[in-house]
């Protein structure tokens, strides 16, 4: 790769979740890896060929790892391509993305995994990891080649937005995946209770007249998934847990030693059902937005580590899928470019220490997938984000890089501006001036 000139970042606020360090420091990048980290403001004897970047106290953290990104490639490129998603990721300080397999065709065989990896290599921006489909065509009936796809580079297995309804199929997947120690991700939602719903059942949705599903739809399916994980010993990732009830189930299973981890989406940490009040379809999400009490419980669960990972759940949708009445629009929201500033607003609200939020999008997903990135230690890949955590920002969806513009953060006032993003030591995004 070009950009072989070593770079020294000085006067940085280093945040390293691995060593739990949040403080003044400096760091040198060379040959694509972090080669030196110091807890002093600068290095005493830097050689003259080193490019020095004075961070002026801005945060230097591991680049973000987003475990749940949808693109439209292959099959729906007008929504988002791997390239536009990669550019959006770089602009948002996200250096690794895991793309979902429920595309058209689905990423359900080793050749498709290879296709995604080759496309990503050509783009040469951020790390793109494919998730493989757990069942063929994500239809929920026949298992995919989990072993071969793991070898090809699939980092976990999921049917994406599709629920694996058949418990026998799901049990076999979790059981079979053990042979390769493969991770299986599933979003818990009882399909019959949630059919046709676009809101959470309750007084608010009833007033709006929106078809709604009860919150227990999540708990019911989660209990099943956890029970299957327990009997099979398979590794389960709970995709986008959202309700207080389900968190209680997760806590119980974790205490029992079930091999389970969980993600929370930034949307469910940032918004509640009241945001759907004027039928704005950018807040039509799946799972639907919940009452404020659930949002608070979710923040607590992130804070306590019960839910160790935060994802953007980036779901680009074109205008024709959103410029519709609420119940007729498609669910989903973009989030790659706004992930870091929206996380920082949780920090600015004083709810979760910054280092814990950073861990949830760096070290925690890296450890789950067995990646070397996500930490500031000598020898780790130089995937970095430099960010002014206090800079004010008004999100303007029209100015986002993604091909789609369905950002629920549109018009929101956030704090945190990404100044520079490095992937393998190469600068892939930089704010001019």
């Amino acid at each position, binding site marked *: 790769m070009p950009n072989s000139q070593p770079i020294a970042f000085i006067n940085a606020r280093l945040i390293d979740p691995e060593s739990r360090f949040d403080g003044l420091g400096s760091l040198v990048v060379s040959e694509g890896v972090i080669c030196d980290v110091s807890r002093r403001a600068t290095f005493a004897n830097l050689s003259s060929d080193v490019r020095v970047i004075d961070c002026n106290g801005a945060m230097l953290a591991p680049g973000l790892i987003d475990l749940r990104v949808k693109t439209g490639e292959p099959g729906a490129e007008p929504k988002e391509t791997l390239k536009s998603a990669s550019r959006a990721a770089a602009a948002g300080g996200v250096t690794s993305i895991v793309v979902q397999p429920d595309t058209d065709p689905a990423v359900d065989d080793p050749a498709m995994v290879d296709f995604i990896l080759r496309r990503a290599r050509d783009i040469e921006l951020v790390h793109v990891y494919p998730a493989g489909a757990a069942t063929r065509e994500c239809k929920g009936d026949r298992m995919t080649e989990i072993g071969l796809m793991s070898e090809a580079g699939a980092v976990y297995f999921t049917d994406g937005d599709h629920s694996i309804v058949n418990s026998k199929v799901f049990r076999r997947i979790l059981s079979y995946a053990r042979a390769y120690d493969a991770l299986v991700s599933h979003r818990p939602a009882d399909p019959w209770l949630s059919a046709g719903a676009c809101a959470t059942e309750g007084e608010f949705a009833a007033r709006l007249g*929106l078809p709604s599903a009860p919150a227990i739809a999540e708990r019911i399916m989660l209990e099943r998934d956890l029970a299957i994980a327990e009997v099979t010993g398979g590794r389960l990732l709970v995709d986008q847990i959202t309700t207080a009830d389900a968190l209680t189930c997760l806590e119980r299973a974790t205490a029992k030693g079930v091999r389970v981890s969980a993600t929370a989406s930034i949307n469910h940490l940032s918004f509640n059902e009241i945001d759907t009040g004027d039928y704005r379809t950018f807040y039509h999400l799946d799972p639907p937005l919940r009452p404020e009490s659930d949002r608070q419980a979710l923040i607590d669960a992130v804070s306590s580590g019960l839910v160790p990972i935060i994802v953007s759940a980036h779901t680009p949708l074109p205008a024709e899928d959103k410029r519709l*009445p*609420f119940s007729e629009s498609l669910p989903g929201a973009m989030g790659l470019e706004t992930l870091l500033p929206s996380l920082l607003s949780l920090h600015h609200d004083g709810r979760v220490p910054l280092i814990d939020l950073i861990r949830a999008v760096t070290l925690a997903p890296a450890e789950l997938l067995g990646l070397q990135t996500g930490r500031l230690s000598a020898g780790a890949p130089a995937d970095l984000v430099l960010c002014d955590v206090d800079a004010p920002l008004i999100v303007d969806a029209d100015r986002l890089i993604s091909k789609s513009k369905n950002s629920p953060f549109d018009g929101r006032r956030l704090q945190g501006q990404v100044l520079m993003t490095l992937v393998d030591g190469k600068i892939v995004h930089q704010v001019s001036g």
Partner: protein
Amino acid sequence: MTSAADLEAPIRERIFPFPTPHFLSASSLNRPDAERLLDLADAFVAVNRRDEKKLGILRGRTLVNLFFENSTRTQMSFELAGKRLGADTMNMAPRNSSMAKGETLIDTAVTINAMKPDLLVVRHAASGAADLLAQKVGCNVINAGDGWHEHPTQALLDALTLKRAFPRIEGLTVAICGDVLHSRVARSNVSLLQTLGARVRLVGPPTLMPAGVDQWGADVFHDMRKGVAGVDVVMMLRLQLERMDGAFVPSTREYFRFYGLDAEKLALAKPNVRVMHPGPMNRGVEIDSDVADDPGVSLIRDQVEMGVAARMAVLASLAARLGAGN
């Protein structure tokens, strides 16, 4: 013989600019505005009963009825209301035209907006559709029913019917019975009746009650006999036939037995009880013909008549906003 202008004068005095640019939900009305609107509607009732029904209040204005969902009486009612006020009215049913195919609701709105209507009446099967249109067009939007959300002019015409049938609405006890879950009529009526000081009861099987209904400020009954006991008004809701047959209730006959309004259940209400129904009725499902057709208790035909007057009041009031330069 008095001229049309003389007949208009007392009505013009009562017209006031509508409090909001659009009429999307009954919950947006406060009590003084609701009462002024009812007074105005009351004056239109007299106009509708005379030979010369045409007024010039909306002369030069264009009213578009945009009905994405089937409706005979509401559409006719708005059309008549517009014509009697002197507006040019036009009906569009995008479902049956090329506009439906592949066009988003907003595209349709933009198309219609380009034709510069002054008033747009919308019915749509999705909740929030009228709100969405209101954000995208330059004219005044009237919600003629959006999904399960609201049907505010129905609530207004029901209130007008009650205002004329009883000395006062305040203090009345109204039992709204049937499929509350899927009913925009119920939502609008609960809101407006409470605004006007009536007590509302909701009666129906638990499967047809929305979640959180206990927070609506109404008393909820699953036993209809208790629910209608001592009430002044029984307002029946239409039950879509596809929701019977095991989906929300087991069968038509079981529903009629426990939740259908017949003379026996009605006898538990106050002696001078009145019965209402937004129509169209499922006779023998939610209401017995003996009750529906009894002129001594049924206000159902009055509701249809009041519908035109209530809508004239809304149109005239919204147009006064236009005239005021808003």
